């Protein structure tokens, strides 16, 4: 029987199976951060239970941490409730243990979905969970990786397992070469625009095709990251030379004889020829253009050369009202060309687009130019301390600073605005993050999701521009 990659990952982690198909699924890697873990550790303590396997845990503080004022230490976290949450993670990891912990201020601290892969703590064939929906990111390494709630965090801490049911298989086949200025971010936004934010609900997505094979690991992570925005909990890409090349020599990747054995195992992590998918969606990469969201859901997206849609043309009443409400919130008139939309702030960062390749691409656009005067704040928030240092080694920080960008310390920052980085009411932002929900980047803030290149170009021009024409 031919199996999909998802079938293989699922089957190899089933500890036991009930008659109704409910399975006890073994978890190899548990990523922990400060926001969704305190109640889980408390629950464990109240029930008098212990952590099942300490060496499965990789922890960091990322959601609440400030991106400035690190010289002030923990006192640099001005918000007392944020500080308590960061300290609570310190206490919990100190008393329970972890394979590795990158606390606030550590030089390897960073966004949990950036530090896992860059340290080789995310390895092909693993089940990876975290109390964060963007855990789907790790699927780029042929992992079965998905976000869980706090009760499940506690369940994994206590049992190393989750009670789960298998999803259906959805293949997203992307063939052809991407055009100049078109990125992985545009592929995934175009996909969400096509199938909708509930299009993948109930499915595990595998991304395949020549356009996916041609992407770097960073690009694949960007696509898998936003799988949850298409409604699916996990997205994945088969192992190939790009995967193996990325992992070689990473701190927690196997070495020597074990590396050879591991690579032999990893090469099996691809769908068998002829494996059956419940649904197939095909995308032609040559037709994908740079994408910009116009509304308050990632499915509300068009290409840069299009206009803001007109709700009057929508037949479905619930959708029409949703569009009208989104346009009111966004302060946009129907039929406005996307290129005429002016922005107030620019955010380059988040678990979607804060890796070294993203920063290189944005810097290439910015180099030798200045942020438009009308832009109040343009900021770059590297995904981790390691990304930050690498970028500084390459002089990218200078490129951004010379252009008028702020160069910040790593963390989740203005993707969800739990720290001090946020939009003020009514402010409009070109953002490389993953969600344009109402209030996501600050109460009343207006988010337009774009690629790093598009965000960088928007910062320079003060409005959205087509990077395909950037010279």
């Amino acid at each position, binding site marked *: 029987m031919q199996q999909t990659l998802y079938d293989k990952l699922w089957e190899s982690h089933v500890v036991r199976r009930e008659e*109704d198909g409910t399975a006890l699924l*073994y978890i190899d890697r548990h990523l922990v951060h400060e926001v*969704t873990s*305190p*109640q889980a550790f408390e629950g464990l303590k109240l029930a008098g239970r212990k952590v099942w396997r300490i060496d499965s845990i990789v922890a960091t503080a990322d959601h609440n941490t400030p991106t400035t004022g690190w010289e002030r230490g923990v006192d640099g976290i001005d918000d007392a409730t944020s500080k*308590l*949450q960061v300290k609570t993670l310190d206490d919990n990891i100190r008393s329970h243990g972890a394979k590795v912990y990158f606390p606030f201020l550590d030089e390897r601290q960073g966004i949990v979905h950036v530090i896992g892969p860059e340290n080789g703590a995310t390895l092909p064939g693993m089940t990876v969970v975290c109390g964060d*929906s963007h855990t789907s990111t790790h699927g780029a390494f042929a992992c079965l990786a998905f*976000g869980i709630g706090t009760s499940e965090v506690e369940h994994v801490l206590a049992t*190393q397992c989750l009670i789960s049911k298998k999803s259906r298989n959805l293949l997203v086949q992307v063939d052809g070469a991407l055009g100049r200025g078109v990125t992985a971010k545009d592929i995934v936004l175009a996909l969400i625009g096509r199938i909708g934010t509930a299009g993948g609900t109930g499915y595990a997505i595998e991304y395949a095709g020549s356009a996916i094979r041609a992407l770097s690991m960073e690009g694949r992570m960007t696509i898998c990251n936003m799988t949850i925005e298409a409604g699916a909990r996990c997205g994945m890409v088969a192992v190939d030379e790009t995967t193996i090349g990325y992992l070689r020599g990473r701190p927690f990747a196997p070495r020597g004889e074990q590396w050879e054995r591991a690579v032999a195992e990893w090469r099996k992590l691809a769908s068998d020829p002829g494996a059956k998918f419940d649904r197939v969606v095909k995308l032609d990469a040559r037709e994908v253009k740079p994408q910009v969201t116009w509304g308050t859901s990632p499915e509300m997206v068009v290409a840069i050369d299009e206009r803001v849609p007109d709700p009057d043309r929508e037949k479905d009443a619930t959708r029409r009202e949703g569009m009208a409400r989104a346009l009111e919130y966004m302060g946009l008139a129907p039929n406005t060309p996307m290129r005429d939309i002016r922005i107030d702030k620019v955010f380059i960062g988040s678990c979607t687009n804060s890796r070294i390749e993203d920063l290189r691409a944005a810097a290439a656009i910015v180099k030798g130019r200045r942020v438009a005067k009308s832009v109040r704040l343009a900021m770059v928030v590297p995904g981790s301390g390691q990304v930050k240092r690498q970028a500084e080694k390459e002089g990218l920080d200078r490129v951004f600073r010379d252009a008028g960008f702020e160069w910040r310390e790593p963390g989740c920052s203005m993707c969800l605005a739990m720290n001090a980085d946020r939009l003020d009411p009514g402010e409009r932002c070109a953002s490389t993050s993953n969600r344009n929900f109402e209030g996501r980047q600050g109460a009343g803030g207006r988010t337009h999701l774009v690629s790093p290149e598009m965000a960088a170009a928007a910062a320079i021009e003060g409005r959205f521009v087509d990077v395909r024409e950037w010279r």
Partner: protein
Amino acid sequence: MERFTVHTGLVAPLDRANVDTDAIIPKQFLKSIKRSGFGPNLFDAWRYRDVGEPGRDDAKRPLNPDFVLNQPRYRGASILLARANFGCGSSREHAPWALLDFGFRAVIAPSFGEIFQNNSLKNGLLPIALVEREVDAIFHDVAAFPGFRLSIDLDRQTVATTDGAKVMRFEIDPFRKYCLLNGLDEIGLTLRHADEIRAYEAQRRAAQPWLFG
């Protein structure tokens, strides 16, 4: 977890699709290290006219009279009626915690975000998926009849009007249903299989040692 068997309650309609967990409970309230106290900030940005912050006295904040849960006729509602893809977005379990803390025991919608649905079931908040046509009909009834209530029977997997004239059936995973009906702790159930987990682990460690240590 609190048991869920039967429940009859007032229905409040939230007539918008794709209600995300950021809307259900905004990020600033996720800084709490507790499981309780999120009710006053449920739908915070829609419910109040100002921007909420943790630690503020929410009772003194200006309410948005247009928001459905602020309308007197829906005071005391315990069943939320919503549109497709309710609870999409982040994995924050604070979303079902906030709904429960506010007083909801069930949410009826055509579909749900998967992680939200999972989180709800683990906390005794019942997400009920009905077909679009049935949800439409309930929206109509709620608007037409002030004080409109529904009765939910988990064991029979039904939602019914209180006069029993209309009965709608819903699906639920048998294992989740069993846990909800009995208020069971899943961790306790899983730990009954600790030996099997250890055996699986030992075999995996031998085959792929690089995954351990």
